[in-house]
């Protein structure tokens, strides 16, 4: 909420609803073309923003479908730098994370001010990174991690977002974690490990009666229904999880299903970690 301006009325207008030619009737437009355990291809590069202490850019493979686009993220790390004079003494580095969707990143235009979901993502990212950095190496200093989501996962062909925003957020978070880890390493901030994010989902493709399956790195529009999903930030060498975000509806009596979902989430972050490791080795070679 912008406190300095008078804002227009909220929710006074109704968004237009486009006629949905392609996907009319059938919900499962194209479906998933990858194996259940395969992640999308990912492009990652460090050192893209010269003015920042460290930076990285991540792009997810665009699906074969026309009009669909993959996630594009740019992360810059500023610091370590001195804390403002008014800040209290800190024996650790003070981490602050900002995630912002570009106004044009999603189907529905986003404002310039961070909305609650972006703040929420920022907290998730902070939790994921704070477990990875060695904060006591940099007393009295601060670091800002700023991520712009240049383009979100989206599909022009689907007329409306089908309650997918929450699942999209998980995909975005996983990308943010990976790109931030690369930028942190580029900035020379001590980390215990390279943290990478991954998403796994329990999907039901064949209507309400079919058996749900677990897939890695889901694209919401590929699936008829997502029953549950989890986003995991994982440290491969230590075999530790720094952030776990699960959402869905699972019977509590079936712990195995949950455990499998988490295992697949870890698999997804391992996949992302391979890309991250290769990217970092390229950086120093």
């Amino acid at each position: 909420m912008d406190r300095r301006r008078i804002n227009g009325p909220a929710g006074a207008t109704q968004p237009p609803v486009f006629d949905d030619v392609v996907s009319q009737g059938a919900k499962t437009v194209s479906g998933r073309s990858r194996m259940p355990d395969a992640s999308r291809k990912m492009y990652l590069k460090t050192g893209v923003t010269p003015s920042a202490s460290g930076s990285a850019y991540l792009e997810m493979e665009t699906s074969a479908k026309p009009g669909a686009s993959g996630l594009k993220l740019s992360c810059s790390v500023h610091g370590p730098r001195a804390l403002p004079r008014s800040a209290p003494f800190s024996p650790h580095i003070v981490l602050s994370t900002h995630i912002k969707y570009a106004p044009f990143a999603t189907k529905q235009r986003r404002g310039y001010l961070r909305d609650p979901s972006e703040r929420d993502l920022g907290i998730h990212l902070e939790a994921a990174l704070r477990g990875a950095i060695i904060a006591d190496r940099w007393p009295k200093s601060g670091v800002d991690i700023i991520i712009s989501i240049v383009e979100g996962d989206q599909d022009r062909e689907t007329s409306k977002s089908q309650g997918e925003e929450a699942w999209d957020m998980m995909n975005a978070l996983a990308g943010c974690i990976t790109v931030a880890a690369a930028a942190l390493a580029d900035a020379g901030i001590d980390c215990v490990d390279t943290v990478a994010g991954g998403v796994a989902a329990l999907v039901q493709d064949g209507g309400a009666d079919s058996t749900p399956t677990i897939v890695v790195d889901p694209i919401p529009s590929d699936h008829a229904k997502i029953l549950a999903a989890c986003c995991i930030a994982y440290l491969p060498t230590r075999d530790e999880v720094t952030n776990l975000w699960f959402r869905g509806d699972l019977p509590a009596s079936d712990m195995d299903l949950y455990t499998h979902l988490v295992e697949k989430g870890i698999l997804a972050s391992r996949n992302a970690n391979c890309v991250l490791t290769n990217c970092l080795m390229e950086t120093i070679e």
Partner: protein
Amino acid sequence: MSSTNHVLLSPAELAYLHASLSLTPPIRPDGRAPTQFRPLVAETGILPGTNGSARICFADGTEAIVGVKAEVERTVVGPEGEGVIVEGGEGEVEEGGGEGEAGWVEMTVEIPGVRDDDSGTAFLAAMLSEGLLADEGFVRRLWINRRFHWKLYLDIILISPPLSYPLPLLSLTTHLALLSTRLPRLKSEGDEDPFFDDDWAAAPYLFPRPNGKSTTFVSQTRPPITLLVMAVGNNIIFDPSKEELAVADVALAVSVTAGSSSSQAPSKHVPMDTSTEGRNLRLLSIRTIDPPSRLTPPGVANAANSAYGANAGQKTTHEAQATAEGEAVEGVWRAPRGGAKRMVLGALVQKVLERGGVVDEVLDALEGVDLG
């Protein structure tokens, strides 16, 4: 901007707390058993101007109030013939119609002393509404007819600045408020403009009450509750206080609800063993809470302490204070690094979801609150 506010504790206190919570069984500073909650005082229906309300306070004076208000709202329907949101009667909603439905519930959290655009508050609100919305059956209850639905406003207000992470308090209060929520009885039929019975006594509960002392709560659907659990060493601790959270290795917020799943699909995976004692619990959401332990000041071992005995006055402070890489010394606090082992996370979730475990008892106790 962290999900948990920072607490100032001395390294010696942290080391002591960690040691006592790592014992088997753990010794909690307030003497509670690991799964025991702080005693609380609860009442519902405190605000006559709302559809449902509740108040819970802790012995330390922390107090939360939740008011639920419902308004009739016109459902945005797509072009002719395409039932974007609704299809058929009896609250049957076309599957996947989530976006429109999620917007039917609006939740705000107000924490005194915190800016309303604070990220921590946004995180709290997201966490509470996530649990609510993950249960598709919940928003379905707000359906009136094809053209109208209830819009539910949940306003969660913490009366005093939080003395501990307020998540469980807010969640339990929200649960009670929803339990006590009643919507006016619909008199109109079909898709005409809704027309309601103005007799409040006839208004049905949003979550229908069990008849008398029936034990068939297996089929009873309840609003979700979000619990805070943390692990120290091998111990799993419920409803941690501020001090306990400050030495947590990992903390999770787990949203659970009781009742049969609205989307029956996953339950097909398992045979429904309704014969067993206890509720049919469903896991709705899990979030990692960034434990404040990572931001705690480290202790200095006597051996490295410049202010210790003979070394005093020598200029060795910084070599000593710079956290030398070394093995942990007993009795000296060190902020944890890295994340949590999979096993620990799994155990935490398992403990919450245990049949006939903590969640069941909490739900029992909440049901026992008089909804006058």
